Structures are given as structure tokens and as C-alpha cells.
């Protein structure tokens, strides 16, 4: 508590301190009173009970005091980051949450699957999920902030990172098979480091396999397919081009070779044929023939 990693933390941790202190106070008080009464007025020590039907003053007392306390808690709870107070000079980053990865697009077109931010600058995340996807929730525990991400709609989240370091980004709204693996990284770096990484605001140029790589990142392919040969939800992209194996079609095993026709069909009708041993979990996408050709160029580079 009270780490100063972002501007959102101070108010939240102050509220936690007050609320949890109050909780512990009342829990200890109530339990102590209960145990004391059970001991002091046990049948052995107090064989003759006294009949008391109530007391108006006490009722008022324990109505009014909690009322004042909870109004105080309500007031403390107001210290959240208001959507209406986004600084005008905030750096805007587009966030896409999809089953089961996060991608970030910067003003110059740079795309990444890690969120890299410069220290001390206000950031406004404009978040959405692709059509046909489901709800997600963008959650940075270290910053005490969270906001749901909805298909076809844009929600925002803004904050100012104040300490360099790496932080976890979780998905906090159930989104299917690999919900618990939808973990991203937030890297807060110094201003100069950020400049080296980001370049300037002129649009980035890419050619060759890099174009395909960008498409793969931007469409969340990397959420389920690795590029280093490790097994994730789907088969790895490493060595995909020309790979031979077996498909499961209507419960029967069929041989396949990963050529152009195969890759085209696998992307356009992801649920028609599934590689044996993997779940039928890929969702529909809007990739066109040209995108897929770039992807194939990219896959060829991953041997």
C-alpha cells in the first residue's frame, strides 16, 4: 500500500486504509462484546435474565452513528479517476482486447502486444473489442484501475504512470477458454527510453515479413499461437509453412500440408477443420486475401 506508481493509487490506498481500519474496529468490537456477554451473562453467572424489550435512545444512536460513518465512506469513495477529467494533452493509445490477448496501437501506427509508456505523462486508453468478440476487462492491479472492454463500443481509462517498472495487465471479465492466460505486460520507461522505442509521430513504414507480423499482432493471433515453437492454445507459427500433420474433420483424421490453400481456409473458416490435438477455439476474423498473403510471407520467415 501507498506505493506511488501511478496517480490513481494514492486515493484508492487511502480509502482502503480507512475502510479496512473501520472494518477491523467493528469486527473486533462486536466480537468482543458478543464473547463478553456470553461469558458475563452465562446461565451459570446470571441465572435470572432481565427482560428488556428495547431502548429508543440506543436505537437512534446505532442508526445515526452508522449513517454518519457510511456517508464518510461514500465521500472517500468519490476519489476515483473521473472520465470527465481526462487531461487534454493525454497521449491516446488504442487498446484492443480479444480472446485472448491485448494489442496496443500508437498514434504513429506502431503496434505492440506490450503496453510501453513514458513516465510522468498522462495516458488515455481508448479500448474496444472486435465485432464478434466478447466482454473483457482491462485491469492493472498495481494502479488500482479497471475498466470493461466491449465489442463495438469504446470505453476509456486514463492515468499518469509515476514509477518505471513492469506491471501485470489482467483480464478481469470472464472471456472463455484461456481467460486466465490473457495476461499482458505494462512497461513504464523513462522519457528518453520511450523516445528510442517509439520514434516520432510520422507513420511507421514496414515491408517484407514485418507487414505480416504487424497484421498478426494487430489481430491478436499471438494470443494463441507462439512464434518460438512453444505450445499454446493453437499450434505454433514456427515452422508452420510446409508442415505436415493430421486434421480432425467430422471425427475422422485427415492428412494435411500447410500450403497456401490450407492457410487461407484455416483463417477464413477457422472452425471447419482443426489440427488434431488442439481445441476448436478460434473465433472468426475479418482478414482479407491481401492480409493473408502478407501473413504467409511472415510464416515463411519463421522457419
Amino acid at each position, binding site marked *: 500500500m501507498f506505493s506511488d506508481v501511478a496517480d490513481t493509487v494514492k486515493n484508492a490506498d487511502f480509502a482502503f486504509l480507512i475502510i479496512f481500519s473501520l472494518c477491523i474496529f467493528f469486527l473486533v468490537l462486536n466480537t468482543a*462484546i458478543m464473547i463478553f456477554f456470553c461469558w458475563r*451473562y452465562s446461565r451459570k453467572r*446470571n441465572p435470572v435474565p432481565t*427482560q428488556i424489550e428495547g431502548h429508543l435512545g440506543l436505537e437512534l444512536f446505532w442508526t445515526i452513528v452508522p449513517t454518519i460513518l457510511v456517508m464518510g465512506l461514500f465521500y472517500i469513495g468519490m476519489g476515483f479517476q473521473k472520465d470527465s477529467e481526462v487531461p487534454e494533452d493525454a497521449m491516446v493509445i488504442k487498446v484492443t482486447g480479444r480472446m485472448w490477448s491485448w494489442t496496443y496501437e500508437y498514434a504513429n501506427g506502431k503496434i505492440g502486444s506490450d503496453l510501453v509508456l513514458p513516465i510522468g505523462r498522462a495516458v488515455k486508453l481508448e479500448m474496444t473489442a472486435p465485432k464478434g468478440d466478447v466482454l473483457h476487462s482491462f485491469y492493472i492491479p498495481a494502479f488500482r484501475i479497471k475498466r470493461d472492454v466491449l465489442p463495438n463500443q469504446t470505453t476509456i481509462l486514463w492515468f499518469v504512470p509515476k514509477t518505471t517498472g513492469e506491471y501485470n495487465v489482467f483480464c478481469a471479465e470472464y472471456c472463455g477458454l484461456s481467460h486466465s492466460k490473457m495476461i499482458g505486460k505494462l512497461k513504464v520507461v523513462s522519457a528518453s527510453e520511450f523516445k528510442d522505442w517509439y520514434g516520432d509521430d510520422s507513420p511507421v513504414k514496414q515491408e517484407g515479413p514485418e507487414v505480416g507480423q504487424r497484421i498478426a499482432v494487430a489481430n491478436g493471433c499471438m494470443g494463441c499461437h507462439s512464434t518460438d515453437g512453444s505450445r499454446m492454445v493453437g499450434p505454433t507459427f514456427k515452422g508452420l509453412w510446409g508442415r505436415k500433420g493430421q486434421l480432425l474433420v467430422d471425427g475422422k483424421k485427415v492428412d494435411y500440408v500447410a500450403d497456401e490453400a490450407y492457410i487461407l481456409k484455416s483463417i477464413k473458416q477457422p472452425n471447419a477443420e482443426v489440427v488434431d490435438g488442439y481445441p476448436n477455439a478460434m473465433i472468426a476474423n475479418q482478414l482479407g486475401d491481401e492480409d493473408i498473403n502478407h501473413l504467409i510471407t511472415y510464416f515463411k520467415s519463421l522457419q
Partner: protein
Amino acid sequence: MGAGAKAFYHDDAVVFAGMFQAVKKAGKNSSVFRAIAWVLSWILSTDHKRVGILYFVAMFSFFSVAVSLGIMMRLELFQSGQQFFEPKTYNAMFTLHGVIMTFLFIVPGIPAIFGNFLLPLQLGAADVSMPRLNLASWYMYIIGAIMAVVSLFSNGGAPDGGWTFYAPYSIQTQTNVSLALVAAFTLGLSSIFTGMNFLTTIHRLKAPGMGWFDMPLFVWSLYATAWIQVLATPVVGITLLLTVMERTLQIGIFNPSLGGDPVLYQHMFWIYSHPVVYVMILPAMGVISDVLPVFARRHIFGYKAIAYSTMAIAGSGYFVWAHHMFTSGISDVARLVFSFITFLVAIPTAIKIFNWLATLYRGSIQIDPPMLWALTFLFTFSIGGLTGLALGAVVTDIHLHDTYYVVGHFHYVMFGGGGVGMFAALHHWFPKITGRMYNFFHAKVSWFFFFVGFNMLYFPMLILGVMGMPRRYHDYLPQYDFLNSVATIGSWIMVFGILYMFANLLKGLLSGEKAGSNPWNAKTMEWETQSPPVLHNFEKQPKMVHGPYDYEGEWVK
């Protein structure tokens, strides 16, 4: 009390009486027909006490299934990395655990079992006002429950997505969500039947001389609960039907791909599901209000304050639903308004807690098993209520929403409140229902295991949530290992306690000592008839001669 009169389960009040008599007659010569007649005498019975017991058997069967699922989930979460189950299996398990515990156990909960058994007895009535509707509610419950079970094994496989079935996931998933939703809809009908029945019974069938403020507080809690059941359940019925229509007919209501709004689903879902939280907890509060005075041998403190706060909770519970949605994208103003109202609802709950504590003051307290469970309720429910404060304040809720803190919080409320209240009721009214008494020593030992295991299981969840671990996670980062292991070990101890408790009660049922009509020397009307009660409860219409908490002139020899 007419000693020797037949207990209710030796006397029949059935629908389809002609058919039943024919089977019974055939049973004179055939053991098969005798067995069929016995089964029919239960499942055709309109007697409110038998209906209560039918609910008990069905609900605790499902409870044991859901507990088993819970244990398996904790096994998977014992450490980070995959332990025993694939993600698909785990995701189905937490959904089923939630659906069964919510819709099949804790929502029908205390009213369906103890409300059915005790409401007419506490009012001095012969039965509920619509006995056939009462039996019909049990059949609706069973039909809904069977559909829920069938959805596990039929096409598409077990449903996932959590008991909240948020759109658009619930609309797109290939698992068998539609049938599970129709099941929940049918269970809602059962809940409305019970609610209507209780309302009319309380309005029309109070014993001569019994006014509204002479009713036991358990009856007040059933009254408040019944209003919520009748008024709030239709909303979720509509929501579930709309979701089914969206899945089958592709109409865009909640699914953004079809032009719908997923946040609308959340509004409609919580407009029902928040009030229904009070359906789960209010009857338990009623049980506590009835048990504490019996074992403290004194008048409940602040009868009217408790009765009014019960109605206040039921009435204001409708206006706080959006505190489940502080991170959904609703406006700043909406978040502030709902946070404010949420804090107002905390006040009547605080009033109740203080009144219960004051009931112990200058009493003559004996901690028999029902009292032990009632005192446990005061502790565990206090944790449940107090941990809710951090979820009512917007700035802290944003951090805690959809984390294990929420899981810990609602288990302290639902299980530490509703469940523990049910166990208190079970130990309190066991001698009335069965006519026999259980062993006190074993009851207390089993409580000890439950209490230790319960807190070991759920308290670490609160800390995990503050540390940022989201819920509905099949796997988690290694930084959460230790507390998850503690919780899993706690689950073993708690389940041992529950099994121990039921073994002790079962032994009491089979071979316990005869309890007599009023073993606790309590003052409410159900203790004025024999144990177990006769078919129509009282040999002659009882009259109100003293209040439900009238211990004046009472002392222990």
C-alpha cells in the same frame, strides 16, 4: 398436546386421492405397491411439512453436488499451473457450482425448507393458504433442476460463462447455455409460487389474537422475502427468455454483433439479482432473531426495529443494482448515485447486528448447538457485511471488482450468513421436525471443524483479491500460490465438518432420544404442538396468549 395423536408422516393429505387410495389398497398384499404408496404419500402430499421435507431432500442433494464441484475447483487451484483439470472442465465447474448453489440451493433456501415447515406452525394455522400451489412449486423446482442437470450431459457439453451468464459470451458460446437458462426460468416460477403462497398465508391465516407485531421475526423475514420473490423474479425471467430468443432467433438485444447492448443485460440481470441477495440472507436473519432469545431466555431487543429494518432492506434492495457495474462504463454520476444508495442499505443491516448483540445483554445464556451456530452467524456475517463496504465505495470497488475479494465477500455473506443461518435452523428445529434430539457434543465438535475450515477457506480469498487476483481463473501467477494452498486445505477441513455434522444429525434422526414437544422451552407457537406435529398441526385452533419472545417471570431452576 394430544399425546399419541398420529405424527404428520403417518397421515395422508394428498392430491389425486382416489388413485392414491387404490394404490394403498393394493399395498395390503404387495410390498411393491406398499413402497409405491409410501413414495406417493410424499410426492402427492399437500401437507406443508412434507413439502418442506421434500425440498430439504432435493436441495441438500444438489448442495452436495455443488460442494463436490467446489472441492474439485479448490484442488485445481491448489497451486499455479494446471493440476488436475483442463481449462474447459474448470470453466464448466465454476459455472455449475455457481448455478447450483445459487438457483437450486440458496435462493429457495431457508423459505422452501424451514419456511414451508414452520410458517403455518408459527402462525397457528393448519397449512399454508394454497397447499396445492405449494406442492406445484416443488414440482416446478424439480423440473427446473432436472433441466439444469440434463444441460450438463446433452449437446454442446456443460455450460460455461459463470452463473451470471453475461452477454455476449452467453449468446455466442457453443456450450449448452440455452437449456440452463430455461432451467433458471422454471426455478424462478417455483420461487414466485412460494412467495405468493407465503404472502397470502401471512395476511390471512394468523391465529386469533395475533397482530402483525405479535408475529415471530422469522415470519417477518419470510414476509419481506416473499415480496422480493414476487416482484423481482419476473425481471430475470424476461432477461433469461430474451437471451434464449437471441441465441435461437438471432434478434439483437444484448449482442453487439447484432446491434444489441451488453450493458443492458447487466442492468436487467442485477435488477433481479441484487434484490435476490436479500432473498438469500433475510430468512437467515429471521432465524437468528428467533434463536437468540430462546437461549438467552429473554425478550428480543428492539422487536420493531428489527421488523422495520427487515422491510427497509427488502424495499431498498431494488435501488442499488448498478454497484455491480462500476467498471462497466456507466457514467461518473451513475456510479456516485448508486454508491450513495448502496451505503444507505448498509444502515438497516448494522441496526440488526446491534439489536442482536443487545439481546445477549443481561440474558441467561446457554450455548447449546443452535445458539453456537447463531453466534457464529453474528461473526461470519459481520465479516461478510463489513467487507461489503469496500465494494460500495467506488474508488476501492474499481480495484476489487471481479477479483477474489468479491468471491470471499459473497461466500462470507451467502455461506457465512445464509448457510450458517440454515445450519442454526437445522439444529434449532430438528427436534420439532423429527421428534428426536441429536448429540450435543458431536454437534459442537463438527461446528469446530466447520468454523476453522470455513475461515481458512474464505479469508485468504479476501487477501488474494486485494493483491489483485481476478476470479474465474483456471490458473494464476505464482505470486498467489501460498494463500491459494491455505484456502484449499481449509476446504478439506470445512467439508469434513459438514459431513460430521450431517452424520451426527442422521444418527439423531435414527436413534436419538425423544425430544418432547418443547425441548428448548421456547415461546413461539410451533412448540405448542407435539413433535413431530400432527397432520393439521394443532388438535384445536391455538390462540395467542403470550408474545413470541415473552420470557417474563422465567428463570432457570
